[in-house]
């Protein structure tokens, strides 16, 4: 167990280092001088030289890389060109709506997908099963921003059931801000429930064919108890994995959904940073999200140990 943990954490450290390396070299893929690109065509050569010096771009590449990795590991993600503030601070100021949107969407996706997946597996081949599987595939084919725009047009603007866009003023209370996230979370959650539904259904189908399910039924246990107690408990592992995978989908979805509903989160920040060529912000956002993803996947692996006593490393 301790050996497994240390190996797993060493692997995670290697991936984090690779993430930092990719983020470092990404900006250097740019044709020409990154400093000149960031400043735009109107900048004088003097300004470009000054920015190069400030970003350390005039030093040898190995020294730049060492400094970049060292700083990132200490939580220093550099300085935003546009805001003239530390990137970590800029990201933190936009984290709340994105984190809440991703969390609520995950809850919505789980609430939709897990019961549907279980029921579809129990009634394999029925009209309900076929409808659930087809709907899941349809949901995975529709761009979430399109669904979002249509919902915004009809449910918010036309019928006024939800606020159409925004995230409340600077002095709004949390509950008020959450109101703005209801419709975006519903859209993002439903659109991303497809993967969880397929996994839940598939792993329930696997488990329901096992001997101990037949035994449980044979001893006269009620079907609901068989399915939930013996079935779901053992089918839980793949469902936990897929939560980690869904996280990446939700973050991608949040980027465009925030744009649709004009929510001032990290997604909107990154899109603006791309248009402003604020490379340090883009790098910082990539690093934060990727490290979170790696961390969540480590956590889901550890959850295995708690959920399934058979798993031993």
């Amino acid at each position: 167990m301790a050996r497994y943990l240390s190996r797993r954490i060493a692997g995670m450290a290697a991936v984090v280092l690779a993430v930092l390396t990719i983020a470092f070299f990404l900006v250097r893929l740019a044709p020409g001088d990154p400093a000149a690109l960031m400043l735009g065509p109107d900048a004088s050569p003097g300004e470009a030289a000054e920015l190069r010096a400030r970003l350390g771009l005039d030093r040898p590449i190995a020294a730049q890389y060492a400094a970049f990795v060292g700083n990132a590991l200490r939580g220093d993600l550099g300085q935003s060109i546009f805001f003239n503030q530390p990137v970590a601070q800029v990201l933190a100021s936009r984290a709340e709506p994105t984190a809440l949107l991703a969390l609520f969407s995950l809850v919505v996706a789980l609430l939709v997908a897990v019961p549907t997946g279980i029921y579809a597996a129990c009634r394999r081949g029925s009209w309900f099963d076929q409808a659930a599987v087809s709907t899941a595939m349809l949901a995975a084919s529709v761009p979430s921003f399109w669904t979002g725009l249509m919902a915004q047009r009809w449910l918010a603007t036309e019928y006024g059931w939800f606020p159409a866009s925004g995230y409340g003023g600077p002095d709004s209370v949390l509950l008020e801000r959450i109101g703005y996230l209801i419709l975006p979370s519903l859209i993002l959650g439903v659109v991303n429930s497809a993967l969880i539904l397929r996994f839940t259904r598939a792993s329930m189908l696997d488990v329901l064919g096992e001997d101990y399910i037949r035994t449980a039924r044979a001893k006269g246990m009620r079907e609901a108890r068989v399915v939930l107690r013996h079935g779901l408990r053992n089918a839980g592992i793949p469902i936990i994995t897929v939560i980690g995978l869904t996280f990446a989908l939700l973050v991608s979805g949040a980027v465009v959904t925030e744009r649709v509903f004009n929510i001032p989160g990290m997604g909107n920040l990154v899109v603006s940073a791309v248009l402003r060529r604020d490379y340090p912000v883009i790098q910082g956002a990539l690093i934060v999200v990727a490290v979170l993803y790696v961390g969540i996947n480590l956590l889901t692996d550890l959850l295995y140990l708690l959920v399934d006593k058979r798993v031993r490393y």
Partner: protein
Amino acid sequence: MAAGSAWEERGLAAALFSRRSVAVAAVFFLLLTALVALAPWLAPFDPAAMSVRERLSPPGDGFILGADVFGRDVLSRLLHAGRVSLTIGAGVALLSSVSGILIGLLAGFFRRLDAPLSRLIDAMMAFPDILLAISLVAVLGGSLANVIIALSIVYAPRIARVVRASTLVARELPYVEAARALGSSTGYVLLRHVLANILSPIIVQATFIFAYAMLAESGLSFLGVGIDPATPTWGAMINEGRLVIDQAPFLVLFPGLAISLTVLSLQLVGDGLRDALDPRIANQM
């Protein structure tokens, strides 16, 4: 390992089209490809021709699917935009497969390369696809070729992972060992024996990447960070239409339907291919 799979006995097409939904999807996709390929001849109007008097005309007589903010014909624009969107999807499927195969074969076959390449693949897959894609386009610039390159970088790790896993298995197969023992060069063994053996999962994965790349491209164009806005794509049409969605929702509705139906048909074909090529996986899903 194709031996015993359904398509060897019945032929791939028969196995693929045994499900009606897959057959319908494949026919739809082929028809769509033909339609957009013939767009210059089929489109009733020049997609760039503006007519201020007819701006926001609803679908009907003059313009079958209506006219946009500049009075341009929506149907003609949809057809021309479809060329760009499908080109991107096909380009990404091809380029990501070729580079993914190369990386995956190297990682799977040469033990010394496995650890660093695998960490790199893991790290690439830790970035959400849209986020990585917009960062790459931001750095490379928004031409058609650069969008294809950026999305191929995003999706190549998925192919590489499948190829690596299959190569690890294929490497230990007796006839691969035999070929090496007989003195075949490493390159020959990789291409002739290993790659030929793992083609099925690659084809399935490439079909899904075709679909994901089209979705991702529409997202990029919607965000305004994709191809330069003068080129019509389905995502860009939605982005233009959203400004007038209250008066003319059809400007958002039609391109969205085009994306959804195309991606859905590709996913159905991918599903069908998976079932036809590899029944073992099919039983699990």
